[in-house]
């Protein structure tokens, strides 16, 4: 099946701004799904609120557009009741880690087989450019006009500490690596987190004088490096990308099935 067969063409054009990185994420995701040969009926996409979350409207899967920050909680209900389905949950950085931070760490802790994609553009785009937990100290936003004093955290570190058994990072500049990581994340049985550094030229780029979309993507190229590269040793400030952890650990739905067997015996 060609990648375009996975989209709902009649709902295009999409709502994303010119130069937004989220379309690249959609592209890489569909290429990954195409490569896996999954049928549209096998995939549930649950999303929350924000620019990133609108991705669910454009794909011809079972799509659940929920409320801000709670997509993983809805997805947990779907997955637990239909474990054979593939759950993909695209979220923005604010959606996943501010309002949804608690659901995020607990979904990771359970190691439930859901693929969480965090499209990290370091800003609340839908509401017009307020700082997010990922904006970082010293950045400018409409709600941080005198520079932001909130510190960010590292999504990869947070995910690993929370118990995710697959954790990766990539950027919109590295679209092919992104597709490959998505493919492996979906295949992985357990909670998978993929952070995608994505550009918001309209707000984050403009407010912070980072140039246009191309400039921002080149910035991703220049400030990131593969995990464990020589460049990283020379320049510790570089951000690593690639798969940080990929471990076989007991998955929540399978554990629950065994739990049911124990309960039935005790009956």
């Amino acid at each position, binding site marked *: 099946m060609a990648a375009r067969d996975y989209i709902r063409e009649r709902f295009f054009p999409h709502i994303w701004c010119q130069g937004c990185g989220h379309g690249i994420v959609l592209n890489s995701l569909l290429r990954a799904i195409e490569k896996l040969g999954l049928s549209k009926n096998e995939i549930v996409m649950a999303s929350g609120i924000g620019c990133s979350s609108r991705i669910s409207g454009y794909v011809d899967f*079972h*799509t659940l557009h929920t409320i801000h920050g709670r997509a993983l*909680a*809805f*997805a947990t*209900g779907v997955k637990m009741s*239909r474990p054979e389905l593939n759950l993909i949950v695209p979220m923005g950085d604010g959606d996943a880690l501010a309002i949804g931070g608690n659901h995020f760490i607990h979904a990771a802790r359970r190691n439930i087989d859901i693929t969480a994609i965090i499209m990290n553009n370091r800003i609340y785009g839908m509401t017009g450019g307020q700082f997010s937990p990922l904006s970082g100290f010293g950045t400018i936003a409409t709600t941080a006009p005198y520079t932001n004093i909130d510190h960010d955290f590292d999504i990869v570190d947070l995910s690993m500490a929370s118990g995710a058994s697959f954790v990766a990072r990539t950027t919109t500049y590295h679209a092919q690596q992104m597709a490959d990581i998505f493919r492996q994340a979906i295949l992985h049985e357990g909670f998978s987190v993929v952070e995608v550094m994505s550009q918001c030229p309209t707000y984050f780029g403009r407010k912070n004088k980072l140039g246009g979309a191309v400039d921002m993507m080149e910035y991703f190229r220049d400030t990131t490096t593969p995990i464990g590269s020589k460049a990283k040793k020379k320049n510790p400030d570089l951000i690593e990308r690639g798969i940080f952890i990929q471990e076989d650990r007991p998955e929540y739905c399978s554990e629950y099935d065994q739990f049911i067997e124990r*309960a039935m015996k005790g009956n």
Partner: protein
Amino acid sequence: MSQNLKFVQGNEACVEGALYAGLDFFAGYPITPSTEIAEHLAARLPRIRGKYLQMEDEIASICAIIGASLTGHKVMTATSGPGFSLMQEGLGYSIMAQIPCVIVDVQRGGPSTGNPTHVSQGDVNQARWGTHGDHAIVTYTASNHQDVFEMTVEAFNTAETYRTPVILLLDEVVGHMRERLIIPENGEMPVVERLRTSVKGGVDYHPYLPREDGRLPMSDFGGENRYNVTGLFHDMWGFPTDNPKTVHELTRHLVDKIQNRVHSLARFKEYYLDDARVVLISYGSAARSSLHLVEERRSRGERIGLLELQTLWPFPAGIVRERCAQAQSVVVVEMNMGQILREVKVAVEDPEKVFLANRIDGTLISHRDIMDIIRISQAKGV
């Protein structure tokens, strides 16, 4: 019969009713005085290959049950006031996306942490208006364990019939008190199964196009029909729209499907109302004290009766108006500052004859408390 006879807490009666109705997915978070519902379901559900999920908070709990309901399961969560507050946004989502679910609120005093182990009926208006935007809601309650069982089954039946959340408002006294419960045989009480679409996969399916009777056949999410579900205003495919006509029609549909059925959704009990000059209106554990008083005064020949409400929302104003028409005085007995009192005053012809007998101190209202108010209403001393 003996096998079906139990001596249980009200919270267990709710569990038994839910399982009888076909509950197979529960998600919750521990909170007094509702916790026994979660504890019993944690033990019971896996034995019937159902799922019990303990989530990280009440917000996640309601979201998880909505997700599971979409895939075709009968779902419930249980909480108390603070958790019910957290569930309000998810409640609104289930109204907008028309996803059946049952939410049990075993009330405690409030606001805030309030009085966790004591009785209150303070969440009546939160059940009605807690979530934002125009909407209608179905809320049931019960005063004894047999009724808790039956109203729980009814809650599931209504949720499935009208694709709506249903709130079951219990209170601490009913939830924790132990009394007799007889579980009906299978088939003795009707259990409503979900109306599912006959549209085959690959055919254009309209998940949000009401039939002529207003009902919406569902397709189990993850099955052969792919569609979109959203909390935004949406068209018949479930796709977001701000088209004024579509927004108007959906708002009307969500309100009318409940409000137009006030009569058929009304559950209530009548005691000695035929010739009653004093009519008590009550619900939940307060109705027990009310009935105690009515029977005591009747034995002395006084013309007093009780209308016990089991449906609080949509408020059965027509029934209240009719039953109070001949009364000299109406006394609303509830354990809050008069949340149903307001509805009764609007419903009856003469609001001046309506009085409130209440307690707001975490103590079960007694028949004496009610009698004091009746005497005051009759200009007698207490």
